């Protein structure tokens, strides 16, 4: 298929292409639209690649819906797609709020929901394929790398919905287990940009680092105000007090004032700067369509990968029947821009590599530590404190 060699082989059906339908539900406007747009663009690029590949035995027909960032409209979009019975696969949602809204409907129709974004874990549903990272693939390796180097006195910020609440709850558990301390914990609505009291509190408490689980405008307002604090007081510059995130990516940096977040850190399964032949080929495809300046985020790559995965699994299964597609996913190893990918038959989650990126001056991330693919442990059954994990490989 296109520039990427699929490890899961396509079955030649004597020129017969299997038809498969998928509904794609991302918000390209609204408070988290940067992520939604990257997801949508990633999915669209994969659709183009599949359509252009004569060797691909699958014709993917996509139906798009754009809920515009309104949580209530995800359910309507999914209902419209599933009602006719023609669509049995839905890819989408950036927020857990929207995903959890759609799951009961997908279960009822025995379809498959493809969720491609990093999330807070504590979910494993037979009717959902999770290709984004959960906490043992982002927050836990992030802390196990950072706490010994940066200190254990943290200030926790979060969007006031399940992502912020659960990420900070887990962060508190991990910090407590490591003998650390939570100096403050604050929640903001996505659209809240009044952060002066929060900044004053951080200035007073002097944490070793800040975990930023804010989303959208709130996160951007915080980063801007924290940069200003750092300009007034060197104790709050990134090298002294970094802001950590498990969801900040290239797509949001493009919306920020240049250099605003430079030096801060983020965890992801994919960064644009990843050096590998597979990623170079992938980025060439992105550049051909979107121009050479487009940075690719984990959201873009995640949705791209998931659509390709869908087509490959349909090819292996010979149909888009959800049960058969799921079985094909469980049995295969699939080539992706971030490396070979497996889906765990127990959890339906992808095993994913961990990368720690430092935001550079050119809208991207310098990868400063990495770990090879980690099996997802959504309920933290294997390791609840992060203590059981091996150390990271520091690459610079």
């Amino acid at each position, binding site marked *: 298929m296109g520039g990427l060699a699929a490890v899961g082989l396509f079955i030649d059906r004597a020129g017969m292409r299997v038809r498969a339908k998928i509904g794609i539900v991302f918000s390209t406007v609204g408070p988290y639209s940067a992520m939604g747009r990257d997801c949508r663009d990633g999915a669209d690029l994969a659709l183009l690649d599949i359509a252009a590949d004569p060797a691909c035995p699958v014709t993917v027909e996509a139906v798009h819906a754009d809920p515009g960032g309104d949580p209530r409209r995800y359910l309507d979009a999914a209902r419209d797609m599933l009602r006719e019975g023609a669509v049995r696969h839905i890819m989408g949602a950036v927020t857990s709020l929207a995903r959890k809204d759609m799951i009961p409907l997908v279960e009822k129709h025995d379809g498959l929901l493809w969720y491609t974004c990093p999330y807070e874990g*504590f979910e494993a549903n037979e009717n959902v394929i999770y290709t984004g990272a959960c906490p043992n693939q982002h927050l836990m390796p992030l802390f196990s790398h950072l706490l010994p180097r940066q200190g254990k006195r943290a200030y926790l910020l979060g969007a006031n919905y399940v992502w912020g609440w659960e990420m900070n709850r887990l962060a508190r*558990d991990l910090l407590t287990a490591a003998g650390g301390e939570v100096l403050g914990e604050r929640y903001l609505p996505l659209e809240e940009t009044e952060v002066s009291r929060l900044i004053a509190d951080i200035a007073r408490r002097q944490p070793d680092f800040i975990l930023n689980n804010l989303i959208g405008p709130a996160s951007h307002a915080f980063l801007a105000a924290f940069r200003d604090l750092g300009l007034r007081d060197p104790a709050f510059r990134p090298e002294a007090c970094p802001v950590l995130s498990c969801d900040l990516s290239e797509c949001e940096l493009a919306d920020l004032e240049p250099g605003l977040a430079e030096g801060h850190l983020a965890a992801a399964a994919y960064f644009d700067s990843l050096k590998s032949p597979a990623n170079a080929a992938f980025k060439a495809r992105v550049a051909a369509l979107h121009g050479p300046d487009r940075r690719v985020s984990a959201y873009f790559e995640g949705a791209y990968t998931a659509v390709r995965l869908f087509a490959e699994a349909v090819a292996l299964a010979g149909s888009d029947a959800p049960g058969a597609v799921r079985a094909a996913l469980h049995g295969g190893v699939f080539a992706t821009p971030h490396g070979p990918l497996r889906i765990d038959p127990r959890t339906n989650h992808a095993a994913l590599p961990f990368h720690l990126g430092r935001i550079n001056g050119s809208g991207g991330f310098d990868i400063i530590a990495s770990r090879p693919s980690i099996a997802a442990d959504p309920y933290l059954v294997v390791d609840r404190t992060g203590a059981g994990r091996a150390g990271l490989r520091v690459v610079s």
Partner: protein
Amino acid sequence: MSAPGFSGWRAVVLHAAGEGTDRLVRQLGLLGLEAVVHWQPLDLARTPADVVFVDADQGWGGLLPWGTEAAPVPVVALLQSEAPGRIAWAIAQGASAIVAKPVVAASVYPALVLAAAIHAERAVMAERVRHLEERLRLRPLVHQAVQQVMAAKGLEEEAAWARLRLAAMQRRITLEQAAGDYLAGITRLPEVG
């Protein structure tokens, strides 16, 4: 609140085996529990359990061995019916959470957390009640000891109380125990001042 973990827990599912129990057992496996499905009266000696899921639609008296006694482990009702009698039956067996049938994956962890938390809270409350009942039972002993201290030391009632309480505190025992020991001549009261 930190996220409760269930790694290594043993679950017994008292329900006729089928698609629903398969889904339940699978989800319990993801949460780190080892689950077995039985559809016969539970014998905890032969099938040890840390939590019991029971079919409240079809369950009968005697399915669970504890009868009207407090359940020794958390109990989760698997329930489809809305019949008040079936809900009452589940409550009588000690159920403190419900997983509605047909079982959906997302309902299992919340029910498990709730049942375990309520079971633990009930155990704490039962222990506290037992302790208070014991103290209530021994109250006449305290009264008797106070009278004797007043007579022996020539103290007012309040001072006699204080002396007895000091003795209990110093030995880290309850007032009732201190009173009993004093009356039995086992201990002498500390001199004050």
